[in-house]
């Protein structure tokens, strides 16, 4: 079997901390919080009124004029992915048809795409007029809907909401003709998509892959769901910056948001051939399951997370003390944070109390299928800068958590970084990166 080494040669991010990777990194270094009161809809009556919203942007700025008609078919999730994908390609130095049709420097059949995507909830306001026409005696009447309401729904409506349409739009815009897949494992999705893309390059089925994820969780249905299963915090609604507190004794739950994080993965050989700047190498990956009949929570001992980390470390062939940075999933949900802390501590042993642990969701919010990719990008930025910013909102560690949550910014060379993710429903993933600096 071919076993190419896989490196990261480009990064793109659209997050609550800004419209590109530089703004995100500057925000993380400054300890800025991207969480605020929800503006996408009026959250009156919601137990959590907070979210991480991406600043206003025009998706048209990220696509060539020839593709602009497709904008009408883009849900917010798709828009986010299109913006981040464009940045990732530009950052990598790869020139696709969309970036400059005259100067294309890649073979479209050798580029793949693997994106993590969420369950895209429909826009209630878009459907409301049709539903309002389908009422008898004050109640929804499905027979009226079938006859009249349905006709009012725009013909291509469904195409906005299929999760694979992110990879579809990005693929068409940039002329990606290699393997394409969409991973729908909620908060673990973009790590799993990156792991799959790397395996595809490793075995020689593509040379380059766009991998990561996007999700727009600031939707009334998504938010209601997270409130109802009590993963969203119901406190600190008046103090958004302090609301999400991973591993802190006063943590009360997560805050959800929207983002896209996309990286360009490439075989080392291909990257060297074209003299690309190599940002980091993927040297280990692990995947497993948390098994808990209470599907909304991680099993208390964190076994599924532990197995994923063990496998990633074994594949990376490094010792715990080689790690200079851990970016945990760290949602701010007390029981889940504790399960993750136990998992990290049990794999890394005594080293766990020393390695800097830097949760990012207190600033970036919990962006579902985008989160894992944002963390990979944050780790790449930290390696490049030789700097680990301070964690936010963890002033007093939760009892029983012995992790070394970063209190003050650390200036140091980061040789290896570990990123972890897990999701409600149970899928877990861990990735080890090696610095190329």
């Amino acid at each position, binding site marked *: 079997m071919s076993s190419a080494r896989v490196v990261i040669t480009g990064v793109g991010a659209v997050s609550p901390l800004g419209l590109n990777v530089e703004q995100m990194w500057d925000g993380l270094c400054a300890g800025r919080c991207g969480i605020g009161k929800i503006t996408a809809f009026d959250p009156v*009556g919601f137990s959590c009124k907070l979210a991480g919203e991406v600043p206003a942007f025009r998706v048209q700025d990220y696509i060539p004029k020839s593709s602009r008609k497709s904008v009408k078919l883009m849900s917010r999730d798709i828009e986010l992915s299109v913006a981040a994908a464009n940045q990732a390609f530009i950052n990598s130095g790869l020139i696709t048809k969309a970036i400059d049709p005259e100067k294309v420097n890649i073979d479209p059949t050798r580029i793949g795409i693997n994106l993590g995507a969420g369950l895209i909830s429909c826009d209630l306001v878009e459907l409301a007029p049709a539903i309002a026409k389908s009422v008898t005696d004050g109640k929804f009447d499905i027979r009226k809907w079938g006859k009249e309401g349905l006709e009012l729904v725009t013909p291509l409506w469904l195409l906005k909401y299929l999760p694979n349409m992110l990879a579809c739009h990005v693929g068409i815009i940039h002329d990606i003709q290699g393997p394409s897949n969409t991973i729908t494992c909620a908060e673990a999705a973009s790590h799993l998509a990156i792991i799959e893309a790397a395996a595809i390059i490793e075995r020689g089925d593509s040379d380059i892959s766009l991998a990561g994820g996007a999700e727009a969780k600031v939707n009334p249905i998504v938010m209601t769901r997270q409130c109802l299963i009590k993963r969203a915090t119901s406190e600190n609604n008046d103090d958004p910056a302090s609301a999400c507190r991973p591993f802190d004794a006063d943590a009360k739950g997560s805050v959800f948001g929207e983002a896209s994080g996309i990286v360009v993965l490439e075989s080392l050989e291909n990257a060297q051939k074209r003299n690309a700047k190599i940002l980091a190498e993927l040297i280990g990956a692990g995947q497993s*399951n948390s098994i808990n009949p209470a599907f909304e929570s991680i099993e208390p001992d964190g076994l599924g997370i532990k197995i994923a980390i063990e496998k990633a470390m074994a594949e990376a062939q490094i010792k715990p003390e080689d790690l200079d940075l851990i970016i945990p999933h760290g949602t701010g949900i007390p029981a889940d944070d504790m399960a993750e802390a136990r998992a990290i501590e049990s794999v890394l042993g005594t080293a766990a109390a020393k390695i800097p642990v830097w949760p990012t969701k207190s600033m970036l919010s919990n962006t579902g299928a985008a989160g894992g990719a944002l963390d990979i990008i944050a780790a790449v930025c930290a390696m490049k800068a030789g700097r680990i910013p301070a964690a936010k909102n963890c002033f007093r560690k939760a009892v029983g958590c012995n992790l070394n949550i970063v209190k003050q910014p650390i200036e140091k060379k980061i040789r290896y970084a570990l990123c972890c993710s897990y999701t409600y429903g149970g899928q877990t993933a861990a990735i080890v990166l090696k610095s190329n600096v």
Partner: protein
Amino acid sequence: MTKENKEHSVVITGMGIVCPLGHDVQTVWNALLAGKSGMAKTTIFDASTFPTTFCAEVKNYDLTKYTKNPHLHKNSDRGSAFAIGAAAQACRQAKIDLETDKPTDGIDRTRLGIYLGAGEGSIDNDVFFNSIVQAWDNAAEKMDWGKWAQVAFGKMDPMFELEQEPNMPAAHIALLTGARGPTRSCLTACAASTQAVGEAMMMIRRGDADIIIAGGAHSMIHPLGITGFNRLTALSTRNDSPETASRPFSASRDGFVIGEGSAILILESLASARNPGDGDGACRCWSWL
């Protein structure tokens, strides 16, 4: 997909199916041989006024035939429920122990993975539509979010809401089998389960797992699903003849007929399938990938 190196061979050692033609492989195969059709008038919801009034439903499905612990799966969506049934059949055939903390099948759970092509669950239609009816101000063309939240928070069932997430069928199979190996769900519409099986095979070849429970599960037979496909004019509207409506490659075809179900394969490395526990050491495989 021939491989010179047999070390990397991947074989199928178990199969399970829940679909409109039946709830086990033999029944479905016999029905296919007999040319039977699974299409009929839609009964899951009242589709009588939709452009398409028929589909292929799974009928008389009984989840309790496949699990000792139906209470752990009681909120499952149709897709998840079908996945549990198909996975249980496939695992039994492949001799993978189910629903036990102490399996005696000799399989290392960290080497047992799951890869499903699976879709989202059906929304709670009554709450969904009526929350909008109550909160929409037609004159102002605006949603009263306070009113909407009142209905939604009052009526939505938290666990039922969670079950709509597309990674939940895999979560149910993990609970059923104790699988701790690599687990993924992909959702690439009609290509999803083929991609899942293909990538699962590659994961075994790479050495990430010895066995993967792979396949797919989905149901889009719900008002918004049918609305979406009807608006795309993708569905057959041969309402007077459901049984002859699906006619791929025919000159008179007029769209597809939507169905639902789950099909699961057990993929194993050849080395795993030659488990000496089988007695004569013979490979218990059905087919090679």
